[in-house]
């Protein structure tokens, strides 16, 4: 049952989910904001790819880089224009803002492009496969695993070895204290949003690579995945998000394999019931951060 083929598939799904979850948590850790507009950053990346493909031939890698940059820029702009002014107000105000930003970006895509899905071209390397022993392994899956490993490695270096990274982690831990020590809050929060946008951009390459096209509502499923993965792993630690992402990807593959078809329809409902149960009984998730969310009971 668990062939190499299956393992690679599960691992690649897990890597992708880990990136998705990390992008959400990096902002949540600092602002305690569940960013509903996160999924739309993935959509923005996808539309950027679609539009760039219409321009005179650019190498695909350059297009991908531009798309990721646009996602980063969008993330930064949402922070600058929408989140920064409401940051001081209340958590609810910030959450509603993120919901509004999400609706804004979605409907802007509707308005500017179309509600119909747009096919996005990917280079041949994405659709090919390599033969390993007696199984075919899709290149796409290997690409996901390699890219996410590299990205996670680079991020770990950034967070552990640079002053910026240390400041980011300190801010996620105790924001007020970090500010008092002279770390500029605006800079740290902007950096968090930019990293979140970077991850969303990279995710958009692979997510749209799987689906093959982009629609205004494409961001919803990755957002839901990020919710599940971060809750499983622990909302207050970055490691937790990565672990939760991998775990969810693998769990999802197993569930898809063993559940009968008529129950498979309810897969999302099952996953979200698990989320609610975890939040009730083990709200800190698998990996406990230093600060656990407030809870009354």
């Amino acid at each position, binding site marked *: 049952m668990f062939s190499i083929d299956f393992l690679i598939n599960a691992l690649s799904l897990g890597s992708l989910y880990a990136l998705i979850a990390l992008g959400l948590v990096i902002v949540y850790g600092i602002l305690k904001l569940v960013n509903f507009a996160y999924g739309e950053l993935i959509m923005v990346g996808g539309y950027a790819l679609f539009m760039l493909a219409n321009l005179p031939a650019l190498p695909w890698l350059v297009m991908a880089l531009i798309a990721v940059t646009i996602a980063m820029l969008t993330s930064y702009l949402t922070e600058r224009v929408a989140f920064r002014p409401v940051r001081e107000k209340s958590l609810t105000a910030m959450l509603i803002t993120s919901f*509004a930003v999400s609706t804004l970006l979605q409907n802007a895509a509707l308005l500017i492009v179309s509600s119909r899905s747009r096919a996005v071209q990917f280079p041949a390397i994405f659709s090919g496969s390599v033969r390993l022993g007696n199984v075919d392994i899709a290149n796409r899956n290997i690409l996901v695993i390699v890219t996410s490993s590299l990205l996670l490695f680079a991020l770990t270096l950034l967070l552990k070895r640079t002053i910026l990274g240390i400041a980011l982690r300190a801010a996620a831990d105790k924001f007020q204290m970090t500010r008092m020590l002279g770390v500029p809050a605006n800079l740290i929060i902007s950096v968090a949003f930019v990293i979140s946008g970077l991850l969303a951009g990279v995710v958009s390459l692979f997510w749209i690579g799987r689906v093959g096209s982009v629609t205004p509502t494409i961001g919803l499923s990755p957002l839901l995945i990020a919710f599940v993965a971060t809750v499983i792993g622990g909302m207050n630690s970055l490691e937790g998000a990565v672990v939760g992402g991998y775990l969810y990807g693998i769990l999802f593959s197993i569930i898809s394999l063993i559940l009968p078809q008529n129950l498979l329809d309810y897969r999302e409902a099952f996953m979200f019931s698990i989320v609610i149960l975890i939040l009730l009984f083990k709200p800190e998730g698998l990996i406990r951060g230093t600060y656990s969310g407030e809870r009354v009971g």
Partner: protein
Amino acid sequence: MKTTTRLKSVITEHSTLFILITPLIIIALVTDLLDDTLTERIVITMFINLILVLGLQLFMGNGGILNFAHIGFMGIGAYASVIFSMTPQAKSIGLPDLYPILNPIQIPFLTALLLGGLIAAFCAAIISFPLMRLSDAAAVITSFALLVIIHVVLVHWDNITAGPQTLFGVDRYTDLWMSVIWGIGFIILAYWFKESSLGLKLRASRDDRYAAATIGVNMVIIRWIAFTLSAFMAGIAGGLWAHFITSFSPKAFYLTETFVILAMLVVGGPGSVSGAVVGTLIVSIVREGLRTIESAINIGQLLSSTLIGFAEVFLSIALIVILIFRPGGIMGGREIRWPKKNPLSKKNEDSASTTIS
């Protein structure tokens, strides 16, 4: 003489209710006199949205917790009431996979509507009890998860719903005055709840949950009552809407509608019943205006492509602007009141408000 002064004092005490209800009745009367199908359609939709916003205000405004699941309970109320109000023949066409036991049951519309509301409230009561101790981000994610779960169940449980397909063949029972009466009734209910000791306790727990707990407020139970009541209102709104629109699919009870209702409440101000009413009125008017512009542009073919999403883009920008410059909404958490004439009572109120703030 004594009764008239008493009546007068009741009216001045609860002037908010009269000030809120009078313009709504005028709107309804004008619509009735105009007898224009489109206007009537807009006004009925507005009153149904008003019920949803009031329900959301009851839990979110008084409890201070963002609730995304509200529209899910609207969906439950819609499907539940429809199952009981449709004729067996219509059901065998519209709901071919319905459980055979439910097929022959047909009860009058009002009882079906109430039953739909009660079923929504019952579901809410069972699901939400363990969730009410969660606050902040955990509460938001669970309510969002709940919306997704309800949506997935509505889409896939084709023994109860028509699955992802549109359900046809619902009889139209909801007319203008039906929606107006329910809307006004729920304004009174929401106002009563807010001013009652339950509402006061809930608001206390919103402002400082630890202080409230110290003086003996059982936050979990009170939140639970409010959540159930709010789901009942959503369920009734769903039933009214279903018997007004007569064909719908689970897609109607998802994020788009959630956004509209949330926008109405936030624009008006979640802290007060007046905010809910004002927000619903303003957003409804603006939205219809934008839609008219949108369709005028589309019909006139002023642009090369059809214009969609224009109203939503405008609304979300307006929402962000409101949150930046007036986070309490237009009403800022206050109720509209008739200014009190008695100088003594005004003085008392002033001193009371200064001591509180």
